[in-house]
């Protein structure tokens, strides 16, 4: 599910203006994308709200910094996600593994089945995945990017992305309960 308030081409145009050192363009991009970037980082960081806020703000500082290197191809949104993703992966790399702690706090699957999944539980379930898998699922589920766009963005083969995505979904199912999703097509 995409929470985007801006499409790739509109983001392209804003980033090009930012490259020309137009601060009002950065403000527009920030207003349009802050929340979705925050949501992506919140999921990537396993539900750490303050960490997500911090990195979301840092993402826009880096957008300003790296905008002159940006080449517009209708991938402006994906480009911003890429910056945020790198920050998240760096932050995850600096943290000690905490998968066991997090999976302990994931609610019982029978409870989850009965109600909508809350954000904290979702983020904690995602935290049980490897950083690669988490990035793919989050970009697909939260940012609304297609698997092809994710492949282009991360520079990996589409087949690898599809395989890792399917593996991640299987893991999430076993974590959150079989009843949460069943075999079928996308």
């Amino acid at each position: 599910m995409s929470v985007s308030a801006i499409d790739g081409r509109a983001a392209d145009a804003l980033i090009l203006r930012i490259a020309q050192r137009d601060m009002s363009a950065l403000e527009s991009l920030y207003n349009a994308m802050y929340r979705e970037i925050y949501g992506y980082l919140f999921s990537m960081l396993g539900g750490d709200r303050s960490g997500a806020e911090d990195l979301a703000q840092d993402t826009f500082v880096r957008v300003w910094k790296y905008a002159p290197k940006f080449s517009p191809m209708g991938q402006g949104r994906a480009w911003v996600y890429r910056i945020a993703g790198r920050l998240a992966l760096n932050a995850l790399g600096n943290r000690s593994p905490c998968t066991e702690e997090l999976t302990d706090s994931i609610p019982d699957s029978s409870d989850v089945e009965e109600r909508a999944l809350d954000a904290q539980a979702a983020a904690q379930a995602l935290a049980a995945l490897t950083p690669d898998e988490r990035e793919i699922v989050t970009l697909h589920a939260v940012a609304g990017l297609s698997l092809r766009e994710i492949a282009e963005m991360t520079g990996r083969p589409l087949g690898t992305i599809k395989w890792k995505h399917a593996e991640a979904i299987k893991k999430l199912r076993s974590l959150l309960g079989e009843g949460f999703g069943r075999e079928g097509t996308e």
Partner: protein
Amino acid sequence: MKDNDSLYDIEKKIGAAVAEECASAPLPPFSVVLSRLSASGREDGEGEWTEPSVEEKADAARRRRIRPSRVVVGLSAAAVVVFLTGGLLLNVMLNRKESAQADSAVEYSENPETDGEMGEIGRCSSGVSDSDLREDSDECSSGQPERDGE
């Protein structure tokens, strides 16, 4: 659990949950980013962020054109070119020296005096029959042809 639940329902639910989180998240004022940008500029030695003048923008664009990585690549390429050119010059010099040596050897072999000696030695010692020697005895003898005796 519904029959039409797909494998990816779980992903949709995660997306929906995070979308709710996003919608309820407060949007910090843009000034927070500005102050971070200034701090980042200070860390990079660029000072506080202010709206750059046209000259500063042009200067920044010029500086961006020459990045350290490009300088390193340029220097490496120059080093490779110098190395290859040096090797080529060395090779040419060695070739010249060799050809000069070969030329002097040719000059040596073209020297009539030494050539004569070599020719005579060759002619007289290369399996020539006794009769031939007799016929050509004037050539091989030491300047005293038989005729002189007659």
